[in-house]
């Protein structure tokens, strides 16, 4: 049976696309012998994008040294190609989806708070278990719920109805979405990630962050699954579900354990306390990506 809303989404012409340059960067990044020069030249063809990437590279969130990073070339040298590709991916998706609150009863700001928190927590846990996901864990967390934004944008009323239902029933958002919209943010997010040519791990995370056992990229999807829960426990959540959970009973936890990560010695309490004041960092990141780019920064 066709799922009507997913079918509608597949045919909505107004669904934005990623900037051409961003898609090219992602294609380039898949090539094993991609050069700094090629990526840098490619990003430069979209000056506003280049400016935003530089701005973020210089923000309190990413900046490591004291010296200003004034060219993309330098940014790549200092931060590594992977991180610049990560930043380009994040900036492009965020600029297309919009991080500003639409006013009224929109959940947009809460939504991004949750996504940034998930990315930050994933980064924190990545360090603890030494997954070395090289920044993909942050992007994966940041972009794990893009289906929800599409719902909010194109099916706002029904999405709000699903949100209210999840609060009333104390059930998860995806169960409520399934009932009200006939599809879930996971399916829609997966579709959009593929349509935009986002890296396959991001599409995978979108589809399977609630069932990491089915994922192809099991390690990073499990990591995001755990980070997602921890972000919700910090009450950085845009769903109606007020969660309680045992981390060690999660499928994601068992997967990572089986894969050889040192889950048994992890001090979960400490991690929980350490992410307590993550709210500030969330704000720092969001203000860095939301600010209007300075055009001259792009001429590097």
């Amino acid at each position, binding site marked *: 049976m066709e799922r009507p809303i997913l079918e509608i989404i597949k045919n909505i012409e107004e669904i934005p696309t990623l900037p051409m340059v961003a898609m090219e960067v992602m294609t380039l990044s898949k090539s094993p012998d991609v050069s700094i020069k090629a990526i840098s030249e490619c990003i430069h063809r979209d000056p506003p994008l280049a400016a935003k990437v530089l701005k973020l590279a210089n923000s309190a969130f990413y900046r490591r040294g004291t010296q200003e990073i004034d060219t993309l070339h330098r940014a790549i040298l200092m931060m590594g190609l992977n991180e610049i590709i990560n930043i380009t991916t994040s900036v492009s998706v965020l600029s297309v989806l919009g991080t500003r609150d639409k006013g009224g009863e929109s959940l947009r700001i809460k939504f991004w708070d949750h996504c940034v928190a998930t990315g930050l927590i994933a980064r924190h846990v990545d360090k603890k278990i030494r997954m070395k996901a090289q920044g993909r864990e942050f992007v994966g967390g940041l972009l794990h719920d893009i289906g929800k934004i599409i719902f909010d944008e194109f099916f706002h009323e029904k999405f709000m109805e699903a949100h209210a239902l999840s609060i009333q029933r104390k059930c998860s958002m995806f169960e409520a979405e399934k009932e009200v919209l006939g599809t879930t943010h996971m399916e829609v997010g997966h579709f959009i990630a593929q349509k935009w040519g986002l890296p396959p791990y991001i599409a995978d995370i979108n589809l399977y962050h609630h069932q990491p056992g089915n994922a192809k990229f099991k390690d990073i999807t499990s990591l995001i699954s755990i980070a997602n829960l921890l972000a919700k426990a*910090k009450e950085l959540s845009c769903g109606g579900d007020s969660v*309680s959970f045992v981390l060690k*009973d999660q499928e994601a936890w068992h997967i990572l354990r089986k894969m050889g990560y040192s889950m048994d010695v992890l001090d979960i309490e400490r991690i929980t306390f350490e992410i307590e004041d993550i709210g500030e960092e969330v704000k720092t990141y969001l203000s860095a990506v939301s600010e209007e780019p300075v055009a001259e920064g792009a001429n590097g």
Partner: protein
Amino acid sequence: MADYLPSAAVQMTDETFRLLRDFIYEHSGIYFSDNKKSQLENRLSLRLRANNLPDFDKYYYMLKYDPQASKELRALFDSVTTNETSFFRSPPQIQAFQEKALPEIMERRAEKGEKILRLWSAGCSTGDEPYTMGIVIKEILSEKIKEWDIKIFASDISEKALKSARASTYNEYTLRSVPPEIKTKYFTQSGSQFTVCDEIRMLVELQYLNFNDTKRVKLMRGFDIIFCRNVLIYFDDDAKKRFVAQLYDNLNPGGYLFIGHSESLHNISRAFKLVHFPGALGYKKE
């Protein structure tokens, strides 16, 4: 030795904060998150003065390498936990108790046809905690409370604290986190003083108990929920392990232990299941 000026002006660098924070966590299980830096700075500035030390680096060095450090550690614990108890302290924990732990236990009990609840406020101080527990239960059950057999045991080692708890009269400041409608409902006001009403007082049984009195602690059986907040900090690791193992035995299967917000049982017990509630942690006996 130079007599240093009051150290209120002495700043703690971020690096020293992290060193001290980690040291305290390692020795007490209490965690100071980044936003608590000034709190720790304030509390420890008194210890600097008492030890006649010029800065926090020297204080850290003393804790780490001085043979007398264990004595100072006690004083440090005292100064980092002198936060007085209050009604509805650590709201996310109270919320977890009210919205998750209690309903779960009550449902199971009601299904079995045993409408009995046994709770323990271990280290109840002046009574704010057990009375808060009583108010929360009354709020959940309302008139149906009559169908239940409920007892909240509240114990402390300080007779003075127990005396205050018995008087059950508090000032505005202790009630600062209490919602106005709860205040009107469960307290009688007399001037600037508020006394807990009888229907809540009746739920609470106050008693003197020293946690070192293992025989008596063993007799505390069959609890559904135990609150033991900011108590473990006063024990060394061995004593902590013994006491927490005892608390585990004191609980019914399915029961919950709540320790202080930012307190940890990592390295102390693996018997419990760590449960994440919104903004709070709980330890469940399965």
